[in-house]
Every structure is written in structure tokens, then in C-alpha cells.
């Protein structure tokens, strides 16, 4: 059975903080972005998920959605069926199949792959994938500086033209001490060895992307776009080059410098921006990353219409800047 993404939706919070705010408040900022998206006090990963999903399903017959796959490494509850909240907010059928993926930033593509599996088990035509994330760490931790927020959602369909899913390949293995969180803690930690972190990131993503190219018998030139999970922009760009991709292939999927680290959303949000501008027939490869560590690469071909109501560009432009003090207030630090 052929499976394609036929529509998608994106949500970015309205608030932004500039890197300069960190520098003037703290004297430095560990992450190299221009500005990043910040959730308001009344937002969480579920409210962002609902907004993105609502856009993705506008124009789709909700009664034909047979599965909901939800992902976040930062759900507002550690235990609860949060798919239920999304079902009620969107008015979906209460008998659909659901799943929730969390615990690492790999959750986004995991949810995507699960939705493909669930499509085989439902008589309905569509599956909805919703990925929403807002990584968190204590204000005193360097890692925190880069953490942004955002959500995206995709409607997958059986045997319909759209963004066709051509193939997947994955890699996972042990990598200790990188971006982890213990039960009961609200923020992540890290042993803080940057060279080790980049090495694992590079090897894991390379294992998935190059493996997928081999499996598909394609090479980087066959692709119009590459989208990589971005903890920071530089490492991703250097890795893309090492794997044989050009800056041009990478550019449109790189949103880190405008939204920050969006965790489980990172590669999928980049995909949405690529789709806003992609030409029919374009091949796109995306690759997620979760510390610990794992990566999943997916190859797509744009062989039909893939709709979006609010372009990512307009969401990037719709914003209000806040101060670092106000940012700390929103994070309940003061």
C-alpha cells in the first residue's frame, strides 16, 4: 500500500526572545541562533499540538481519520492518555487507534512511523500525526539557552497522491550521558562534553542517512532537500557537507536560528518549511535524532498536492519580542 502525507499544519508560539537578550542578561549565550520561540504562560505542548493539528485537518473529513499518533519529549503529564485531549479538541471519532511517543527527541519520527503502521490496521483513510515539543532545563544550565518551542501535524493517507513515503532506515545504539532526564525532574542535563556529543550526533545520523541512501540505491544528488535534526545549526551544516549534500539542499530545512531547538519537532518542522516551497517531483530526505542515541531517516517524493493553510514563513514573521526577565517569569523561575 502506498502512503502519503496529504496535508500538514504548523504552530509556533507568538513570543520570541533574541539571543542578544541572553547576552545582555548573562554575558553570553551558549547557542548560536538569532531568536527563538517561547511558549506563553497558558501554552504547553498539548495546546500547541491542538493548534497545529487543527490546521492540518482543515479541509479533511475528520470522520475518515482512523488513527492518532502523538509525540513530545515534554508532555504536560508524565502519565495520562493525552491523545484523548486532542481527540476532544478536534472532534475526532472516540474509537480511533492512538499512540503516544515520548522520552526522547526521536519521538517525532517514531510517531510518524507508528502512524504508518496504524494505517494498516484501520478501515479509515487517514492517520493524524501530531508532534509538539518545548525542551526544558534549569535556567542556570547552558543547554537551556537554545531551547525553543513549536508543533507540527501531518495527515497520512492510503493510496492518495501527496508527499509519498518511499523508504525508511534507522540506527540506534548506546550513548551515555548526553541530554538525559531522571524521573521527577523537569529539565534535562548533560555531561557537557561537546566533542563527544557532536561525535555521537554525527555517527548516528550518518548511519541512518547513508544507510537509507544505500537501501534506496540513490545518492545525495537525487535529492532536492535534506533536513536534519538540529541541536545547533553549525553541527548539522558540517555533517550535511560531510555526507555529500550542499548548502543549497540543506538551507530550507534549517529553522534553528529562528525558533531554537524544537526537540522532537526539529526535523519535521524543517520538512514543513521545505514543503511550503518544494516543486512537484522533488525528493526530500529527513533525519531525526534523539540523544542516547538514535536516528530515523525517511525518504519522500512529492508526487501530488500536500496542503498547508498557514505557511511557516508567515508564522515566523508573526511575533512579539520579550525580555530575559519576562522569559524567566514565563518559565516560573522568578
Amino acid at each position, binding site marked *: 500500500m502506498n502512503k502519503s502525507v496529504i496535508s500538514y499544519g504548523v504552530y509556533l508560539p507568538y513570543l520570541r526572545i533574541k539571543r542578544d537578550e541572553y547576552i545582555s542578561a548573562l554575558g553570553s549565550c551558549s547557542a548560536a541562533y538569532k531568536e527563538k520561540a517561547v511558549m506563553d504562560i*497558558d501554552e504547553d505542548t*498539548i*495546546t500547541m499540538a*491542538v*493548534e497545529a493539528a*487543527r490546521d492540518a485537518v482543515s479541509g479533511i473529513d475528520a470522520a475518515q481519520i482512523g488513527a492518532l499518533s502523538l509525540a513530545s519529549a515534554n508532555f504536560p503529564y508524565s502519565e495520562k492518555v493525552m491523545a484523548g*485531549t486532542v481527540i476532544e479538541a478536534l*472532534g475526532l471519532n472516540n474509537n480511533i487507534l492512538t499512540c503516544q511517543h515520548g522520552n526522547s527527541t526521536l519521538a517525532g519520527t517514531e510517531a510518524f512511523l507508528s502512524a504508518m503502521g496504524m494505517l494498516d490496521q484501520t478501515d479509515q483513510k487517514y492517520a493524524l500525526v501530531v508532534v509538539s515539543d518545548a525542551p526544558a532545563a534549569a535556567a542556570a544550565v547552558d543547554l537551556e539557552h537554545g531551547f525553543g518551542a513549536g508543533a507540527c501535524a501531518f495527515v497520512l493517507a492510503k493510496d492518495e497522491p501527496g508527499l509519498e513515503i518511499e523508504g525508511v532506515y534507522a540506527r540506534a545504539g548506546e550513548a551515555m550521558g548526553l541530554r538525559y532526564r531522571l524521573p521527577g525532574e523537569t529539565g534535562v542535563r548533560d555531561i557537557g562534553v561537546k566533542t563527544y556529543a557532536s561525535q555521537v550526533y554525527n555517527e548516528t545520523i550518518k548511519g541512518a542517512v547513508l544507510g537509507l541512501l544505500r537501501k534506496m540505491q540513490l545518492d545525495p544528488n537525487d535529492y532536492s532537500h535534506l533536513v536534519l535534526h538540529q541541536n545547533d545549526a553549525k553541527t548539522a551544516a558540517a555533517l550535511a557537507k560531510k555526507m555529500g549534500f550542499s548548502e543549497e539542499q540543506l538551507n530550507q530545512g534549517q529553522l534553528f536560528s529562528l525558533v531554537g531547538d524544537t526537540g522532537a519537532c526539529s526535523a519535521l518542522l524543517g520538512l514543513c518549511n521545505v514543503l511550503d516551497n518544494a516543486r512537484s517531483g522533488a525528493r526530500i530526505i529527513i533525519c531525526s535524532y534523539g540523544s542516547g542515541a538514535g536516528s530515523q531517516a525517511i525518504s519522500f517524493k512529492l508526487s501530488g498536492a500536500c496542503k498547508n493553510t498557514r505557511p511557516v514563513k508567515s508564522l515566523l514573521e*508573526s511575533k*512579539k519580542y520579550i525580555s530575559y526577565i519576562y522569559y524567566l517569569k514565563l518559565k516560573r523561575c522568578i
Partner: protein
Amino acid sequence: MGAHISIPMYQRAVAQRYRLVGQKCTKCGKINFPPKAVCKYCQAGNEFENVSLSGKGKIYSKTVIAGGGAPPEFAEEAKCKGSYPVAIVELDEGPRIIAQLVNPPEEGYSIGMPVEAVFRKIYEEEGVIRYGFKFRMAAQSV
């Protein structure tokens, strides 16, 4: 003091609070939101059909709640923001509802301006998040 709404009470209104489900009177055709036992328009209809409202409307009247005037369940938000704007929104389908406004434009806003519903946390009590609707200025046509 704000009126305490128990979890079971809130739970019963989930369809209305999460996706603005109203009731269309089968007698006069008007939409009741929030739902009523007897139609508030014709005072006669007591049979209804569920309809999901679009969430689009316009500002009918507005005010700002200052920090001290906030009911306790909104205290956290008031503490963070100092005050927050509230409006009576007239929905496209007719009903008028009171709701908070998010990100009102700094240059001000006035009666009649178009707004759209957004899904937000309304407040949190006993560790349970109460989700529901607020309104933002309608997206400018891109």
C-alpha cells in the same frame, strides 16, 4: 472569590470548552452557547442539534482585569502579566461569550475587530490542567 468548578462539572462541558460545541434549537434555528435546557431565544424549544461553532467572531465589548481583581484560579497568570484583557466576543453564529484575549496588539484594539478562538490552558487546580478557549486577533490575510 472565583466560582469553583469541580472536575466532574468541567468534564461534562468538555465538548463545549474544547471545541465550542453549541446547540441549535430545532424550533427557531438559533444557536445556544453555552447549551441551555430551554432555548434562550424562543423560550419554547427544548430539542437541539449539536453544532461545532467556527470559533470566528468579533469583539463586542472589552475590559482589562487588573492583578488584584483576578479570581484565584487566574492568580498565576495575573502575577506574571500584571493584568489581562477580557472581551465579550460575538461569534459568527450569533452567541456572545466572555473570554480572555491573547496577545492583544500593543497599538490597541477596538470593538468590532475580528478574532478567532485558540486552545489554551485556562487554569490549573489540584495539578489538573483545565484547557479551553481564549481568543486572538484574527490572522491577517497573507
